[in-house]
């Protein structure tokens, strides 16, 4: 197997009395798509915030290629090559689609400093994620599916080695979803390691090479999608009967 | 067509100095009216000129005042400028009149610093700030040689601080010990901490320097904290009618320093006497003139007198005429020293007695004897 690119040990986050993430260990290997699932409030988004440095850890350590990144500033981590999308889309309003993407290009791992370079790079990415037609529109006028693409595009413009996706499929219809899934596959093929949080089983199960399940902040299972979908604990805590029934009938 | 001489002014009609600005405006307008209507104008070599006042609102802002004075000079072509209200505005505007070779006769900028710039064309009819409390100190020293300790509190702003510094020097010269010398920021509505310190020092006299609201605040809080002293002396506040209205009995016995008082008895070449001035003004405006009104009217009178004397409208000649003026007006003796400050005029001390503001110092113009020491708070 390839090298571990992102590693967490004893990662813990407390909000007052609530332990949102409880001593989670994880290893993400270079080049894989790593899915994180778990009931609502299990701590998935919190874990992602811990990785990118938006929240300080209460305990534990996180390493990127053996460099400790816990305790580092978010912009530093982003420049190292870890990009993320937000569960609740956060486009830069008042800027056009291209300009949004350019922000990523300017400040990311790729470190484009000239306007022209950043612009050209943004055009490439707009094309890649299917926003070419909308490139000069203000993001304020876009719908959710397009905003999700912007989230992706911006993250891509950072030229990350690791891409964290927080529910990029949520709110998309199946067709839209298929398109984004293809996109994620493409990105992954280009060598970007992907960590995705998703509640839509079709998407995570379909994409991930390995998965981890969080429940009340604790890791309750890890394995291939196949293993996960048969895990009794996971079915009980997360997948539910209907899902397993449907799976069986399919 | 009528011949006119234009006098220009920036006046605070709005903003924080609007109250004083109104007095200034009334003073300027009154004397202008008097010259035109009662004296029939100013005669220069057979021709009669009417005075015309051109003014704008400076919003109590020095910057705006400067702009307006430049407008008056460059757009209206006016060379005879009357001062705005307040030291800051006087600073700013006098620099402009000086640059343009225009003249400024000012009645409402008392800071000593205004006169440190060696300006040739700037004249003030009012005493500078450092002299404000000197009369009060002289009077008290005269009344009671046993006074030893004085507390001086002031609003920490240009004018009030200049007054306080002047008072400190003068008190020390009299051999008093200044036990407290403390400023507080403008707009304060509580100086209890400061007064507690004053109380601990047990001074014989408390001198306060500031504007109207400071004067009221000082008296009120001294009473609230039951600080009893032999005398309280203030600058402007006790000379204003509102002071007595608002403080009622508590105002009794407080001394105030004024540039002028309506009860003074000077003669005047035009209006006859101070009394006449007061009477006519009251008839026309419906209130008794205070010293802001009087000094402002006097500033117009200075121009009138000087132009008549110079028999010319040439700024240089008028300027020289002003510099050489020496006469008694309803406002007091008018003459200027080489820096343009009043050479002969002094301040008067007023005291609130039975709800009236009476002049108690200097002795030769006093209406009544000062009540001393101040009765204790009840």
């Amino acid at each position, binding site marked *: 197997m390839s090298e571990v690119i992102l590693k967490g040990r004893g990662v813990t986050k407390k909000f007052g009395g609530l332990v949102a993430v409880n001593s989670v260990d994880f290893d993400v290997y270079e080049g894989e798509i790593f899915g994180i699932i778990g009931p609502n409030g299990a701590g998935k988004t919190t874990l992602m915030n811990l990785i990118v440095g938006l929240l300080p850890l209460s305990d534990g350590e996180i390493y990127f290629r053996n460099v400790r990144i816990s305790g580092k500033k978010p912009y530093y981590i982003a420049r190292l090559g870890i990009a993320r999308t937000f569960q609740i889309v956060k486009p830069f309003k008042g800027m056009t689609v291209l300009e949004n993407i350019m922000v990523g290009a300017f400040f990311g791992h790729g470190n484009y400093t000239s306007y022209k370079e950043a612009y050209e790079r943004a055009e490439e990415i707009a094309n890649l994620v299917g926003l070419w037609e909308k490139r000069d529109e203000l993001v304020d006028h876009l719908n959710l599916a397009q905003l999700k693409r912007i989230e992706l595009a911006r993250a891509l413009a950072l030229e990350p080695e690791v891409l964290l996706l927080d529910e990029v499929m949520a709110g998309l219809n199946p067709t839209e979803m298929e398109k984004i899934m293809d996109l994620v596959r493409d990105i992954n093929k280009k060598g970007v390691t992907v960590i995705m949080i998703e509640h839509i089983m079709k998407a995570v199960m379909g994409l991930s090479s390995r998965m981890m399940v969080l429940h009340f902040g604790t890791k309750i299972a890890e394995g291939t999608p196949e293993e996960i979908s048969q895990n009794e604990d996971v079915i009980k805590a997360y997948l539910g009967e209907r899902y397993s029934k449907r799976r069986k009938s399919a | 067509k009528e011949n006119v001489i234009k006098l220009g002014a920036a006046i605070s009609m709005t903003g924080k100095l*609007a109250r004083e600005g*109104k007095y200034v405006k009334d003073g300027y307008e009154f004397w202008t009216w008097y010259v035109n209507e009662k004296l029939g104008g100013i005669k220069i070599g057979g021709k009669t000129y009417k005075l015309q006042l051109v003014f704008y609102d400076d919003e109590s802002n020095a910057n705006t005042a400067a702009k307006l004075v430049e407008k008056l000079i460059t757009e209206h072509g006016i060379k005879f400028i009357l001062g705005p209200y307040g030291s800051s505005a006087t600073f700013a505007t006098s620099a402009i009149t000086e640059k343009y070779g225009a003249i400024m006769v000012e009645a409402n900028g008392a800071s000593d610093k205004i006169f440190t710039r060696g300006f040739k064309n700037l004249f003030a009819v009012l005493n500078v700030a450092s002299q404000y409390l000197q009369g009060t100190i002289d009077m008290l020293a005269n009344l009671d040689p046993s006074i030893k300790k004085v507390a001086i509190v002031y609003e920490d702003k240009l004018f009030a601080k200049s007054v306080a510094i002047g008072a400190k020097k003068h008190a020390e010269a009299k051999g008093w010990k200044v036990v407290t010398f403390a400023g*507080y920021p403008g707009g304060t*509505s509580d100086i209890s901490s400061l007064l507690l310190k004053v109380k601990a020092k047990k001074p014989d006299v408390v001198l306060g320097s500031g504007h109207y609201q400071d004067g*009221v605040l000082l008296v*009120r809080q001294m009473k*609230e904290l039951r600080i009893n002293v032999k005398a309280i002396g203030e600058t402007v506040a006790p000379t204003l009618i509102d002071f007595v209205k608002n403080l009622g009995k508590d105002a009794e016995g407080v001394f105030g320093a004024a540039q002028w008082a309506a009860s003074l008895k000077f003669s005047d070449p035009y209006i006859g006497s101070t009394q006449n001035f007061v009477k006519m003004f009251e008839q026309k405006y419906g209130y008794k003139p205070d010293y802001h009104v009087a000094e402002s009217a006097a500033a117009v009178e200075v121009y009138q007198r000087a132009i008549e004397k110079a028999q010319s409208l040439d700024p240089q000649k008028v300027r020289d005429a002003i510099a050489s003026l020496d006469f008694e007006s309803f406002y007091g003796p008018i003459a200027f020293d080489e820096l343009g400050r009043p050479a002969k005029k002094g301040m008067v001390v007023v005291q609130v007695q039975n709800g009236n503001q009476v002049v108690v110092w200097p002795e030769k113009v006093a209406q009544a004897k000062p009540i001393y020491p101040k009765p204790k708070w009840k």
Partner: protein
Amino acid sequence: MIIQILINGVLLGGIYGLIGLGFSLVWGVTNLINLAHGSLVILGAYATFWIFHFLHIDPFISIPLVMVALFIVGYLMQRYIFNLAIKADVFLTLIMTFGMDVLLAQLMIVMWSADWRSIATTYQGKSFIIGQYLFPYTRVLGFVAALILTILTAIFLNRTKTGQSIRAVALDMMAARLMGVNPGKTYAITFGIGTALAGAAGSLISVIQSFNPAVGGGITLRAFVVAILGGLGSVEGAFLGGIILGIIETFSAFYLGESFKNVVTFTLFVIILVTRPRGLLGKKYYG
């Protein structure tokens, strides 16, 4: 001595609290930083003054009257002016209230001149003594009035339906509408209450200091400090913020000198902001 300073500070602080209360409420709910607050306080002071002048009603007794009058003014002002731009950027609405401040200040000058006013009650300047400590009547009464109004406002916000609707609108206007809350009216009521509280503060101002239309600016600045110290939209916070401000002022004035009291106040203020950005009792998700 220290205790006397403390007493003075607390008494002064109560009034500061009341000044900040209406400001904080309006800011927290409507997201309007009301730069006209000081002018509205002064309007309340004038109302008190004229009631005293013509009807000879004691300033403390006329507070409810003044509050009703000011409530109406505030209600109309919000309903028919501020509501028209309420969704614009906060800094635009800020400018709008600045315009209102300029307008009100001049209007008051035009109507009532720039003369200094204050109300001479029979008990002004008098104080009573407990132990060896002095308690000036006007300030004690002012403090009590401020305290009562703070408590009433808190009860109103937390216990009444209108109060609940005010909080709801503050947090999410769209959702509040879906619950049956009319946001335009709620904003107007909130602003009306804020203005009424400003008016009450004006009543207190009119007995402890002299005022004219120009002193509004300084009052707005104090209101700012109090609101931030206490935490936006927090009623108890505003009162506490006021008391703290009063104590800081009196103590720093005593130990460092009056001249430095604003330096100390504002330095501390900045420090508190940086260390506790939500103020002392500020609640999450408001403002």
